[in-house]
């Protein structure tokens, strides 16, 4: 029974991956289509309206649509891609739920489960964020990242359902790890935005022919900078909570709230890097490209913590199950 459910779970995850591939291709085609649109609409553009405040040095935000897009609907490719992301997520969540049912516990107790749940959360955050801002241009980044992570997870991290070791039998597993996953999701989105911000900055810095025409359908560099900051801010708050919840759990399980275990060290490093990012953004001369680079360094550290630290560093957080 358990192993059957676990197998169905894997089938669903594979199906979700197939659907994400379609979404990825459609997102790419959408970007290609945007390049065409830019050339057509080039003349009839209205500059995005932004209003500056005096003191804050802050762009006051309206819901500024991407300059070229007239309606909020997007190209057909984009709509297909978006629908595929939703469908993929449904299958994906189905797989995660089956895994949880098979294991009789939350489905994030080893590296494989952390990966499949984490990627689903990334997709979910990506989809939900659209209600707040149109960030569909990040679809290529998000679907691509999720596909790579899922591929590595299913091929290299797969482990059969096993019972929880006593150290993990705690409600903090539900809270601490889930919040860490959510934080990772926001950091991932922030990294995607930071990349677009850097590309946009590069393009705006060039006087001559600007490559990557589709970038003109994206918000400008300043706007992307603000969006990056917002998204990372949420991630930072979640990460702070992860750190504190982890310390409380460590006190219960290991007898000390902080012991510079390798995973603790890297969680701390990530926190400090993003704290640095927030300060960089408030430092004259650092807002913009420089702070975007820091955001990317932060996400690189997140990925490092998830992969290399989990697999190769000796420590108390050895729950990869591999």
């Amino acid at each position, binding site marked *: 029974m*358990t192993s059957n459910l676990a197998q169905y779970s894997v089938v669903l995850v594979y199906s979700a991956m197939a659907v994400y591939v379609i979404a990825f291709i459609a997102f790419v085609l959408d970007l290609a289509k945007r390049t065409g649109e830019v050339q057509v609409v080039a003349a009839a553009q209205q500059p995005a309206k932004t*209003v*500056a*405040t*005096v*003191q*804050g*040095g*802050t762009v*006051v*935000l*309206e819901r500024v649509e991407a300059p070229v897009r007239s309606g909020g609907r997007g190209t057909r490719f984009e709509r297909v891609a978006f629908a595929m992301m939703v469908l993929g997520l449904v299958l994906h969540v189905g797989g995660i739920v089956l895994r949880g049912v098979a294991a009789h516990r939350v489905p994030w107790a080893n590296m494989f489960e952390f990966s499949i749940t984490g990627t689903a959360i990334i997709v979910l955050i990506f989809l939900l964020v659209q209600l707040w801002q149109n960030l569909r241009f990040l679809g290529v980044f998000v679907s691509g990242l999720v596909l790579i992570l899922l591929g590595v997870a299913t091929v290299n991290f797969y482990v*059969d*359902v*096993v*019972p*929880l*070791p*006593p*150290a993990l*039998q*705690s409600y903090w597993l539900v809270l601490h790890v889930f919040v860490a996953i959510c934080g990772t999701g926001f950091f991932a989105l922030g990294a995607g935005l930071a990349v677009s911000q850097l590309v946009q900055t590069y393009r705006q810095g060039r006087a001559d022919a600007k490559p990557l025409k589709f970038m003109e359908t994206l918000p400008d560099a*300043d706007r992307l900078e*603000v969006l990056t*900051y*917002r998204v990372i*801010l949420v991630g930072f*708050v979640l990460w*702070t909570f992860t750190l*504190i919840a982890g*310390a*409380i759990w460590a*006190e*219960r399980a*290991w*007898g*000390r*709230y*902080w*012991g*510079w275990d*390798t995973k603790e*060290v*890297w969680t*701390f490093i990530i926190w*400090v*890097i993003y*704290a*640095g990012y927030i*300060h*960089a*953004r*408030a*430092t*004259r*001369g*650092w807002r913009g490209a420089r702070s975007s680079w820091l955001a990317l360094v932060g996400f690189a550290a997140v990925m490092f913590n998830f992969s290399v*630290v989990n697999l190769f*560093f*000796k420590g108390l957080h050895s729950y990869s199950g591999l």
Partner: protein
Amino acid sequence: MSRSSDETRRGRAGAASTGTGLDAATDRTDDGASLAGDPLRPSDHMDSGPAANRGDVDDVNQPALGLVGYVRFFWRQLTSMRTALFLLMMLALAAIPGSLVPQRTADPNGVTQYEVDHPKLFPILDSLQVFDTYTSVWFSAIYLLLFVSLIGCIVPRTRHHWQALRTRPPRTPARLHRLAGFQRVPVGPDVLADGTPALPTADAAVSSAMALLKRSGYRVERFGDSVSAERGYLRETGNLVFHAALVGVLLAVGVGGGFGYTGQRLLVEGQTFSNVLGSYDSFIPGRWFSQSQLHGYNLTLDKFTTSYETENLNALGAATDYNATVTSRTKGGATEQHDIKVNSPLSIGGTNVYLLGNGYAMQVTVRDGQGNVAFKDVVPFLPQDSNYTSLGVVKVPDAKPDQLGMVGFFYPTAVKQATGAYASNYPDVENPLLSLQVYTGDLGLDDGTPQSVYQLSTKGLKQIAGTSDSALTKSIALKPGQTKTLPGGTGSVTFDGVKRYVSLDIHHDPSQLWVALFAVLAVLGLLTSLFVPRRRVWVKVVPGGDGDGGAAFTLEYAGLARGEDPNLERAVADIANRHASDLGVRITQ
């Protein structure tokens, strides 16, 4: 702090704000430092005044500095945003080595192993304190500088904020139309909503705006026919609380940690631990520890049980639960029974008792060549693998004529492998077997050199059982209850039975609560400082209408963000709508 300068500034800045906020920040040419009610920020902060007018350190042509000048210069450097940023990045970098090599505090055996594996590299790294990264001089220097910089920033900011909290909102700017969310609402007979008896007077409109803003949590001030309102002082409060709480965490860890202690004790079923220094196997006192801090209590380990997975074929024999049943006796005389589990420590006598390890202990009796009982004790063996193949040492210094030493392997579920050697294939006691190699000679215990109880130094000893192949001298294999004689008439050994043991960590850490308190404060501060918007809103009555003559006067609304404020325009529009509805006026677009 003059309001007039504040007003000029806003007028200019409004005119300059053609594009982004960045433009606004750089185009300003005001007095910067005297922004009424504004948080005092480091001079290179994004939201503080322009550098040139503030005697910023960037000035190239500095006049010669005196001693005080230099001190001020370095202090300004240390408390600048750039330095904070630099120190944060250094802190992140400096934390990395501690994750690459084992640390003495977390993994002392790993450090020893590292020394064996890398004999050349070890002394170099050790002299750089890499094995004590988080107490090293360089790591400490970075975080201490960071905290000095932090304190240098928050102390003046707190003072400034304290004053700002008691400052009234500034005068309404002359021209609102350049500001965020600007909106005009003409008020005349034609826009009166149904059921509104009469046109409100300008004075009534201002009063109702004041009441509305006050209800909405703004601090309000009336200036003639306008209201100036400000809210979100909590943003800066949260910011200061967050940073001060971080200092609090550091102090609680640094100072409070000195009052605690941690100790370890290995306890076999039936044994009792007393909370006195002599009863600990190892003990690490804090800096200000005194023995009077040890509250008297006893703990007896009644029983230790492990539950194993028995159904899931992928995890047969995996432990699913560890449970130590203990009886405690406190000084008052109360006797209670408790269960200690992983994730569920026992709180007793100001300490927490954690279950961190377990294993098997052998009950062994050794008779010497003269037939006397030379040894009768219970010996903990250390588990070597997940199936609890365990290794331990029995030292019998009282055996006559020669001292005896034994190195034992214990297999809870013994199976004989093809090679003839034993192995354990299940962690529970299904087919227990104790296998001993026996040595005679001087164990070296009498000269006072400290020895590990888990290791036998075989130098100078003669092995009489357990050498490789000879059938005569093969290892002594015992099942519980069995007795076997030792070769050469040196005596006999009895395996009386197996008991479980646990290793307990006993911690007393009075700083813990303080750290938790400051951590909670930090989170609350962080949330308010990031998500409470600081903004100013103005409502102004301007005589006349839009020119079509129908309106008696026009209401103007505008706002100004003080820091990040994504919802400013919506908030201003909301105020306008609610105000109009309070007045019974329809907003015509």
